[in-house]
């Protein structure tokens, strides 16, 4: 096939599901985070913490916490597992592989997940309809991360910077079902979709 004829257009996970628009005073505002590079990182050896320190100059927190370093957001998703994100085009998985070498198993997952940013005055009331964990500010602090199940769908959830704003990642194939739950649950609060 001639080069010119071959146009491989990328489609985001929520392509065709999210249609921008909605009331100005909506209690819920949703944006798809489309431009993320994503990788899973699994520590393979006890040298992992040191490798991170060498590469990024930080000590990784233990537990389900978020830390941001060199524009990379690292989310603690398991005792040895992290979910890494970085905005932009720059490949993340290969960078991490290079930095961490044999201390980590890195897999590119940039296409494997859909990520939504959900915010608005009613965001906690909305998430209470599916997320079985306590998101009250006293219980879920700014750097907290949770891997959990919402409406039978596995999600990763973390606070973005604002108090009433959460990022939620889920498997790409489940974005349609997640959206059907979210949009139905948000209807009573008013829902606005914004482009990134």
């Amino acid at each position, binding site marked *: 096939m001639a080069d010119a004829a071959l146009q491989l257009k990328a489609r985001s996970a929520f392509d065709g599901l999210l249609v921008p628009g909605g009331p100005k005073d909506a209690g819920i505002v949703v944006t798809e985070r489309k431009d993320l590079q994503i990788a899973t990182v699994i520590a393979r050896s006890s040298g992992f913490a040191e490798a991170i320190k060498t590469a990024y100059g930080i000590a*990784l927190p233990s537990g389900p916490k978020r830390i941001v370093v060199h524009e990379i957001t690292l989310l603690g998703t398991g005792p040895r597992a992290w979910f890494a994100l970085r905005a932009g085009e720059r490949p993340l998985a290969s960078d991490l592989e290079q930095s961490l070498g044999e201390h980590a198993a890195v897999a590119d997952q940039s296409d494997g997940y859909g990520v939504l940013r959900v915010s608005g005055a009613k965001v906690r009331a909305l998430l209470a309809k599916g997320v079985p964990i306590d998101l009250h500010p006293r219980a879920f602090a700014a750097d907290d991360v949770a891997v959990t*199940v919402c409406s039978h769908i596995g999600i990763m959830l973390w606070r973005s910077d604002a108090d009433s704003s959460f990022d939620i990642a889920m498997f790409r194939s489940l974005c349609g079902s997640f959206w059907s739950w979210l949009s139905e649950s948000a209807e009573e609060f008013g829902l606005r979709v914004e482009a990134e």
Partner: protein
Amino acid sequence: MRIPCPFCGVRDLTEFTYLGDASLAQRPDPASPDAAARFHEYVHLRDNPAGLHDELWYHGGGCRSWLTVTRNTRTHVIEGAKLTRTSKSWTATS
């Protein structure tokens, strides 16, 4: 029922999958001369206590860890939970 995952914190039952008695983590030596009998016991026979029970749960809806949970089968009160693998291995952030 809520299970205190050592990594994630206390989580609802729906996030977990049950396997069974914690002895399932102690696979017999396949090279032993009585391996057939030992594997039969390992795979099939259970103490099935009415009271405290060490048991294996998988936190598949969370951190994907296998947990060894100590739970009272009469009251469902959970005494504690630990990562199944901690006894034999390292942790990543220490």
